[in-house]
């Protein structure tokens, strides 16, 4: 199973614009990569069906950890046809995960900077944010993971970006999940 080292940051519009300007100047612009993502937030895992709208592709991903539970994510992923996204979402819903589902459209532009893939994004839940990522091969050692984390931290420091701590990430995602649950409960009460 491949391992992703992922770290995140949220910022306002002006910080977003400054980061994009810097990455265009000093990084490699990998282009627009907008995605409609169907998340199934499971107790200790994250299942995603991703419609890569900019590239016309799609994939299913299972991450063995949730945001806020460490930067290393074991990841199982395989491509599906874009037209099969609705069926995949229906299938996971029918398997009992519908209550754990929410979807998000991500406006996303990818860059590479100092060996780190940086996705600069906007979504309704996160606002403007960025994901810093290094992908490691199957069975990567703890030393390799630590080295990847340092590479990300150095790149973020060079860009003047403050990465969120695991505690901040856990608090943010917990607040979002609670809000989603309250919204669904209110909707259900209204319909009754």
């Amino acid at each position, binding site marked *: 199973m491949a391992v992703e080292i992922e770290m995140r940051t949220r910022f306002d519009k002006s910080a977003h614009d400054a980061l994009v300007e810097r990455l265009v100047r000093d990084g490699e612009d990998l282009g627009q990569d907008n995605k409609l993502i169907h998340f199934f937030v499971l107790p200790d895992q994250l299942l995603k069906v991703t419609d890569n*709208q900019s590239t016309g592709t799609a994939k299913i991903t299972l991450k063995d950890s949730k945001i806020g539970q460490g930067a290393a994510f074991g990841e199982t992923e395989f491509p599906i046809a874009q037209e099969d996204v609705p069926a995949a979402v229906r299938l996971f819903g029918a398997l009992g995960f519908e209550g754990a589902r929410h979807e998000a*459209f991500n*406006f996303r532009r990818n860059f590479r900077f100092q060996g780190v893939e940086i996705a600069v994004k*906007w979504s*309704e839940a996160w*606002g*403007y944010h960025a994901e810093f990522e290094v992908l490691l091969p199957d069975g990567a050692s703890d030393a390799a993971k630590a080295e990847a984390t340092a590479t990300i931290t150095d790149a973020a420091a060079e860009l003047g970006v403050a990465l969120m701590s695991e505690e901040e990430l856990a608090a943010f995602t917990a607040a979002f999940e609670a809000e989603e649950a309250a919204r669904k409960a209110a909707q259900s009460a209204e319909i009754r």
Partner: protein
Amino acid sequence: MSTTQTDSLVELAARKELPNHQFTDSATVEWIKANRPDFTPGWPQPLRDTTKALIEQAAIPTRWLAEPRLADSIHGHRHGLRTAVLAALLADLHRLDESDTATTVIAAAVHDCQRQHDKDDPGHGSRAAVWLGANADLVWTHFHLRPTPTDVIKAATAVRLHEVPYEKFTADDRADHARSAQICDIVKAADALDRYRLPKLSWWPNSRYVREPAFDQLLPLAYDLVVTSEEAFLSGASSTAAVRFAVAEKGLV
């Protein structure tokens, strides 16, 4: 009339063949971009925090619509949310108090919710006003507020009158308008500011039809909100996400 749309809205409008249900398309958005007016630079004051909170709640559920097929049409969620944002900006510009600002934003958010189609649909304002009166608790709760009878009457009046041109006001309309003139005028102006989405230049915003001194000042922002959110929608975002993205891109929240 068929609701299947094969030609662009611009082409259909030119031939006077717009269908009952009208959905934007790439050619129409490119036409809107190619016809960007030569604006005088203008920028609104930052929104108050309480007004930003209203905007966060201003996307209404599709189940409130009389005709769910309009959710993504030219009178659907994107129009409703942009109108609410523009109404919020005008309310802050006029320093309305928090209660009247909320009433204004709520009226703007639901003003077209009882439409049956995207043509004139006479009476849709009256139907939405009646609906709002019957569902006031539901609507104000959605905005994390409690309605007073006065709030509901003011909002329902603005919703009812939004489709009635000033020159066609009856004596009853004038009496109703006089009781909440500022809110009515703002909702009508906000609705008119969002006309850059329409596929004919003669239908675009015109200050002749509104009573809002700041109307021209908001035109560039109204135009940019249309272009950014319509492009975002066509790239795959939901109507609500598309407008929220546009609002973020303009630094309003």
